[in-house]
């Protein structure tokens, strides 16, 4: 139940990709049959990805990852439209790739403002509005947060940006394939292949028709000159196939996962005292449950659950390279010690009701064992 960290490639996606490693290995730039085959495949994938988000094929730029797309969408757009001003506004809970682009832009002389979120992790639009001024080049608010699952009012955030003639980017890495998305209101949108059950190493940036970004990778002018380098044809075909499947199956899968998610949240929080849901109860991705347990630490929970065959992740500092607890939980106002005890369950296609029941059944003992060991646990919970 750690699909936020990585998803298996759907077998149908793998099947679609396989011929492009050995049989159709042409370069889309070549003027011969093999090149045309590859070009046709890339164009079909572009259409499949565009259809998932209600865009046109010509508006999709393939990248190596969602991280690269965030770099290109936030950094590349800001550097392209510097004439407008020198401010950019990001939500406080953006992915680390977006936040680090913000820090780099700050070093380049831009002014960076962070829009806060409320206790349930929803971006505060009033605060956002007060931060966007007529010198603002770009605003970025994610479509949904992958760690706490909270769906963001990104279309309203886009309106706020546009009222000040600022550009608007949204990182839809966690949201795409989980909930329906429309690009009508946004200028740039980041997508990840792996989050759609496609291969790793591929992502895409939606760039609204008529807009440009400053390229980060220079070369032969592939991807309309925005992202040079010979196309990763099998990877792109895989992302296209994954997007096609998501378009067809997302609604039914979303309904199925929502039922499982709510059963998991209810089962765990009702059977374990002092356990709480992080994030919003209903404005929530169908696949995400984030629960915190007082008096114990997340990494110890992960290790205990791993032994039982349950894979999860945590916002605890102890699982982070930086040794800092999750910036998302901190932005919601959780104390360090509360953030340390948080677990993230991200459900996927393989999960079923039996899995949920198994987790609900195992959690009290795992939490109880660690609480019995913890000097912070109050007498009545031991």
């Amino acid at each position, binding site marked *: 139940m750690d699909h936020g960290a990585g998803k298996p490639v759907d077998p149908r996606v793998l099947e679609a990709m396989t011929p492009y490693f050995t049989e159709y290995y042409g370069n889309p730039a070549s003027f011969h049959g093999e090149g045309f085959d590859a070009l046709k495949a890339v164009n079909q994938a572009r259409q499949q990805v565009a259809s998932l988000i209600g865009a046109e094929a010509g508006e999709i730029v393939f990248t190596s990852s969602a991280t690269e797309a965030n770099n290109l969408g936030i950094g590349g757009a800001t550097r392209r439209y510097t004439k407008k001003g020198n401010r950019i506004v990001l939500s406080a809970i953006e992915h680390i790739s977006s936040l680090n682009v913000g820090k780099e832009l700050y070093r380049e002389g831009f002014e960076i403002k962070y829009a806060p979120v409320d206790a349930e992790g929803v971006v505060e639009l009033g605060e956002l509005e007060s931060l966007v001024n007529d010198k603002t080049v770009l605003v970025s608010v994610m479509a949904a947060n992958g760690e706490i699952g909270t769906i963001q009012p990104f279309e309203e955030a886009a309106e706020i940006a546009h009222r000040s003639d600022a550009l608007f980017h949204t990182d839809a890495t966690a949201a795409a394939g989980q909930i329906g998305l429309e690009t009508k209101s946004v200028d740039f949108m980041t997508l990840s292949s792996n989050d759609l059950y496609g291969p790793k190493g591929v992502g895409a940036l939606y760039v609204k028709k008529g807009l440009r970004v400053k390229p980060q990778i220079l070369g032969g002018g592939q991807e309309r000159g925005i992202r040079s380098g010979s196309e990763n044809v099998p990877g792109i075909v895989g992302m296209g196939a994954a997007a096609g499947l998501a378009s067809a199956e997302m609604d039914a899968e979303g309904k199925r996962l929502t039922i499982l998610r709510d059963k998991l949240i209810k089962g765990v929080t009702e059977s374990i005292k002092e356990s709480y849901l992080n994030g919003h109860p209903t404005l929530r991705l169908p696949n995400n449950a984030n629960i915190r347990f007082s008096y114990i*630490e997340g990494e110890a929970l992960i290790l205990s659950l791993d032994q039982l065959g349950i894979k999860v992740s945590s916002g605890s500092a102890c699982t982070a390279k930086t040794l800092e607890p999750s910036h998302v939980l901190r932005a919601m106002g959780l104390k360090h010690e509360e953030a340390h005890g948080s677990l993230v369950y991200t459900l996927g296609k393989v999960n079923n009701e039996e899995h949920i029941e198994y987790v609900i059944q195992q959690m009290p003992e795992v939490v109880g064992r660690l609480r019995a*060991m913890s000097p912070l646990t109050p007498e009545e919970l031991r």
Partner: protein
Amino acid sequence: MMYSEKVLDHFRNPRNVGEIEDADGVGSVGNPVCGDVMSIYIKVKDDKIEDIKFKTFGCGAAIATTSMTTELAKGKTLDEAMTITRQDVADELGGLPPVKMHCSNLAADALHEAIENYRGKKK
């Protein structure tokens, strides 16, 4: 993040977990904000650590290092126990990931504090 088998063993089957009601010495280190709190309780007889127990809030490494510290200290004289270092604990566990050496490997300090607490009471 890779832990040694020995770390995982001490995490899964920690030795000497609990509290000693009438402990002769208690030592506590760490801070819930940082994500690690270790408490060590000792019972002393004839200048030796006759019994030792611990409680830990923290990650797998925090629990395993406290467990190993209690195992190393049990039966030792107080002077011997005072020489147990964080490095000894890490070595006995077959090593710790570098990031865990400083944040989660504090149990030797808790042990020393428990011994000093006992000696302070005796004076």
